[in-house]
């Protein structure tokens, strides 16, 4: 398939892997921030192509995984409000909250529907004018513009039964929080591809400058990722830290201005709670006052149970890159994709699920 096969080329991949082995002389700890990268790395077996002294850590870049229990609890509580239709991306369905999951809430009678885009959620509101439709806004800067666009569209079409439960988050503050914690001693970061398409590369400049971490934006095919690793290793070997783009077909330094404008028009930044990291200042998005009528959290009062974390679950440390999924005592035993204890085992972008599915059972 055009524009995909080129980036899965075995010969090119091999040459990049050889080049990395050739130029790499010292240990390096690299983190792929984005869950999409974790999956691509595991699915293509990229780790096995790298020298053993290059360590790949998975970061917190899975929106479902970093959604805090109390936010999931709120979605579950909303789903039990009579007359409400909850629309959500499928990944959220199985994520355990404090006591239950949306999947269980659906079995208990909640009208919870999987959608593939924010537009589908808006369509559900159009075709069910006598019902109230809530979209679970979980995602990063890639999802946020689509939510903004749906809100503006609802406004234009005077759709008054459409609401957003807004748990959108922004990646740069989380990355900074990780670097600030300093637990993982990173030498390089594979910066998210799709997120960077929206926000550009400017937010990463500070990481390179303030923390001396090499940054390369990567695409999601094997050649993209190997090229990014090669560029990171080159920076590390040269003793420099800057922001490079290995995904020039998808990312411009300034990002997508139109999408940024949309987000700025509809959202304010707000503090948000990240699983495993805690509250991060100005890392979330909330609807601006002028759009507050679409805010499900303001519109519907629900009673929430006390938040409970799962005993033994180490998703938090996994999301911070402090431990690998296989280092968690529950991994593959008490916690499997069939019976997930933590969200990293549920989401298709979760690092535990990727490790489990693609065979790193033994590390």
């Amino acid at each position: 398939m055009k524009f995909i096969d080129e980036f899965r080329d075995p010969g090119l991949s091999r040459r990049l892997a050889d080049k990395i082995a050739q130029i790499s002389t010292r240990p390096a700890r690299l983190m792929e921030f984005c869950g999409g990268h974790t999956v691509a790395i595991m699915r293509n077996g990229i780790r096995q192509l790298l020298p053993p002294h290059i360590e790949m850590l998975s970061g917190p870049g899975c929106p479902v995984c970093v959604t805090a229990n109390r936010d999931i609890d709120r979605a579950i509580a909303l789903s039990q409000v009579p007359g409400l239709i909850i629309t959500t991306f499928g990944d959220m369905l199985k994520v355990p909250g404090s006591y239950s999951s949306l999947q269980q809430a659906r079995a208990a009678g909640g009208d919870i529907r999987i959608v593939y885009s924010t537009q589908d959620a808006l369509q559900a509101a159009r075709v069910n004018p006598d019902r109230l439709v809530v979209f679970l806004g979980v995602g990063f800067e890639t999802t946020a513009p689509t939510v903004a666009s749906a809100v503006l569209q609802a406004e234009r079409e005077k759709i008054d039964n459409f609401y957003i439960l807004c748990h959108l988050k922004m990646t740069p503050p989380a990355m900074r929080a990780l670097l600030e914690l300093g637990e993982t001693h990173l030498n390089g970061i594979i910066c998210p591809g799709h997120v960077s398409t929206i926000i550009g590369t400017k937010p990463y400049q500070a990481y390179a400058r303030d923390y001396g971490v090499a940054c390369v934006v990567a695409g999601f095919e094997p050649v993209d990722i190997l090229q990014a690793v090669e560029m990171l290793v080159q920076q590390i070997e040269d003793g420099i830290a800057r922001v490079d783009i290995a995904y020039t077909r998808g990312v411009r330094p300034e990002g997508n201005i139109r999408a940024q404008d949309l987000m700025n028009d509809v959202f304010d930044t707000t503090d948000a709670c990240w699983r495993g990291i805690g509250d991060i200042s100005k890392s979330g998005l909330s609807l601006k006052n002028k759009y507050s009528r679409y805010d499900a959290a303001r519109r519907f009062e629900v009673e929430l149970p006390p938040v409970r974390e799962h005993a033994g679950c180490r998703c938090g440390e996994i999301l911070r890159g402090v431990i690998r999924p296989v280092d968690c005592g529950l991994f593959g035993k008490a916690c499997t994709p069939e019976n997930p204890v933590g969200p990293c085992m549920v989401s298709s972008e979760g690092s535990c699920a990727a490790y489990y599915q693609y065979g790193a059972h033994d590390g």
Partner: protein
Amino acid sequence: MGEKILLAHGSGSRLSHDLISKVLAPSIMNPVLARMDDSAVLSMSGKLAFTTDSYVVNPIFFPGGDIGRLAVCGTVNDLSMSGARPLYISLALIIEEGLDIDDLRQVMASVKDTAVEAGVQIVTGDTKVVDHGKADRLFINTSGIGLIEYGTDISGSNARPGDKIILSGGIGEHGMAVMSQREGLHLSLPVTSDCAPLNHLVSVMLSVSKNIHSLRDPTRGGLASTLNEFAKQSDVGITIEEDKIPVCDGVRGACELLGLDPLYIANEGKLVATVTEVDSGKVLSAMKKNKYARQAVVIGEVTTEHRGRVVMKTSIGSSRIVDMPVGEILPRIC
């Protein structure tokens, strides 16, 4: 507005009889069914295979087929994968009140065409109508009986180290066709279901080789599930090559778009076989002559290593484990 199914159509009244005699029975009539007794009376001798399956696909019409074709193919294929020649099928309909009778006619026409193609007779049946909202348009159950004619013992637990793994063609087409129809995806490269009866294909394969050890149609859970079942049931390792597995551009594109892996998407007209290396060539060339297996290909082999696991050599020359799928990949595709 066309004629609709009413609750009374299932009540045993004159209306029921009319539905059966005018809409349901004529297309599938045969001497056994014509007796209209409480059960079909069949004379058979030999080793029998017996199977049952229910079909709840949504929507009931999809590109490349409908619930009628699916219901016949599914049961025909289940019998075939045990090495049996399918002979007789039952057909039970659960109809939601309000279904267009024309839709029912169209489904029955598919049932008939598919049964004729497969050479099976529908010898007994049942019709129930449930209140609006208590079913989703039309559910079908079929059971089937087949005769084991070849001496071979075919089973998922018979794969042996050294066997070649043959796949009959491109994967993921049925699941993706149903999915794209249901979700209104409007793919630029439309995908058509591969739904097909495979009994003639299997019969050709069995006639050229007595060394086919395992046969299975990779339906729900896709190729990944079937290979994992072979690996676990037979306590062997399986190695496949990503580049050898045919996936049409439509399925590849849709999977890229939706973040799905074709290995896990359902098929309804494909089979996987494990065959001794010696016989694999002749089985493969016999298969390629059948219209449902023109793309048949050896995708890997059975090994003594990594028992119980399926390992795939990836396109870029690395390898990874292919695990069983988890949870529902795509709901109600069959």
